[in-house]
């Protein structure tokens, strides 16, 4: 298994945020992690990246426990994280932001930059502009492009569609599928449940720091509880 979370518990001070999360991502999969605000989705991704340390349980990458691995070395193991709110370096140009993505390994900067510019031609036009001056959509493209620069095997995406216009969301989701087709496994956190489940092979629904439901994308899309809770549909009872 590429990524495995085994009964992971994480808390902020004394307040628990994850209460025994079990989750797996296999090579080549798109897995989506759904859940209401505050369910623990961001906490899950930050724990995988080593920014937070589980109080209990273990996270495995290729079967190797991550608890003793420094967070900054994770990108070298093939994990790249597109954080919530994009977090592009506002004072760096588009090109410099991409270079940051290749910080741990500078050997493939040119091909990497070419590839990102092919994927997102808008970024090529703005190559010398500061990250902070880009629109929300462009910043999201840059954050994804930056994450691609490290040639990941597993990409963690935290609400990439947040606050974007539908047309841009469409582009972002198409690119996620394309990245996955090129062999990158994706763990996609989304509020946008329908679209996420349409492209995902499998999904998990997180509630109060626990996995409440799991299944294939199609099964979850058809599940009454999912439709009710996340798609805002009224299901007739009785």
């Amino acid at each position: 298994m590429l990524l495995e979370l085994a009964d992971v518990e994480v808390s902020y001070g004394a307040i628990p945020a994850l209460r025994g999360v079990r989750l797996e991502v296999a090579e080549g999969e798109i897995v989506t992690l759904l859940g209401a605000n505050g369910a623990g989705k961001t906490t899950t991704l930050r724990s995988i990246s080593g920014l937070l340390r589980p109080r209990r349980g273990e996270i495995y990458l290729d079967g190797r426990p991550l608890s003793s691995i420094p967070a900054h070395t994770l990108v070298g193991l093939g994990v790249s994280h597109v954080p919530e709110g994009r977090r592009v370096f506002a004072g760096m140009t588009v090109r410099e932001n991409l270079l940051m993505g290749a910080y741990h390994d500078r050997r493939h900067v040119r091909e990497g930059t070419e590839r990102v510019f092919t994927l997102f031609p808008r970024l090529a036009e703005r190559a010398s502009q500061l990250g902070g001056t880009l629109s929300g959509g462009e910043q999201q493209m840059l954050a994804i492009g930056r994450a691609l620069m490290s040639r990941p095997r597993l990409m963690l995406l935290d609400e990439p569609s947040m606050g974007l216009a539908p047309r841009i969301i469409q582009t972002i989701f198409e690119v996620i599928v394309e990245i996955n087709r090129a062999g990158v496994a994706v763990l996609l956190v989304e509020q946008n449940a329908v679209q996420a489940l349409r492209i995902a092979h499998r999904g998990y629904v997180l509630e109060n720091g626990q996995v409440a439901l799991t299944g294939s994308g199609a099964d979850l899309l058809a599940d009454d509880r999912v439709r009710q809770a996340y798609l805002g549909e009224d299901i007739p009872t009785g």
Partner: protein
Amino acid sequence: MGFADQFWQLTVDGLMVGSLYAVIALGYTLVYGVLQLINFAHSEVFMLGAFGGLFAARGLLPGGATPSGPASVGLVAAGLAVGAACGAAAAFILERVAYRPLRRRSAPRLAYLISAIGASLFAVNLAGKEFGRQNVPVPDLFTNGTLFHVFGAQVSTQTVVVLGAAVVMLVLLDRLVARTRLGQGIRAVAQDADTAVLMGVNVERVIILTFVIGGLLAGAGGFLYAMTFNASYNMGFVPGVKAFTAAVLGGIGNVRGAMLGGILLGLVESYGGYVFQASYKDVIAFLVLVGILMVRPSGLLGVRLGRAA
């Protein structure tokens, strides 16, 4: 003679002192950038560098006449190098002893300030004990005299050495921050430390190297300062406060801001000291600071390290 007659001379003198303020100010601004911490013990890094350079120059100095030519160049270079090395070592130890343990325990802001003041008092008194409490001159490493004139202003060998060395350091640092991988890491940590980690930046390593770079600059700057104004155990205080002022003036955390702030402060002091009275120098410097901060609270160039490169 009036101000107009003296203008160029005051400019040359102001640039010389200002370039040293700039060199020291970079240490404050770089550390602030990566840690949001004012390293109040930086002035002692400067002082220890000055003594290191001074002892090296003194030890290498052959007896007899004032050296000249290649010997002078070698001695100044040795003083700069040893001063820089001592400054770097002092900054490294400071970070390890006074700050890192606090960071490990996620200590509150106030703890860092107290730790900095403690480290500073320790270093000052250790230097007072070991090196004496009087002024210690740097021996003459070259014959100082007027090298040339600019618009009637005399430019001495000393000025050329100090200003030249300082400008080289400023340019190198600017290039380092803008162009190298380490510089990119420093800027990334300054802008968003968590995201820097996600990019593979080893934040602890960047922090310690930032202290070392600031120490290299302050140590070499200390030696240059001592060549002009002598060394003493408490020599760090006034230039330290001035350099800190320069960093705030330019926008703390901003590399080019610190350089601009240092040069401006040197010039303003030089002009102001002449127009009013030399003893008003410091008053004028701080009035300028207060005035500029009232209009631009984040300093002349703003606060972001990344924007500076």
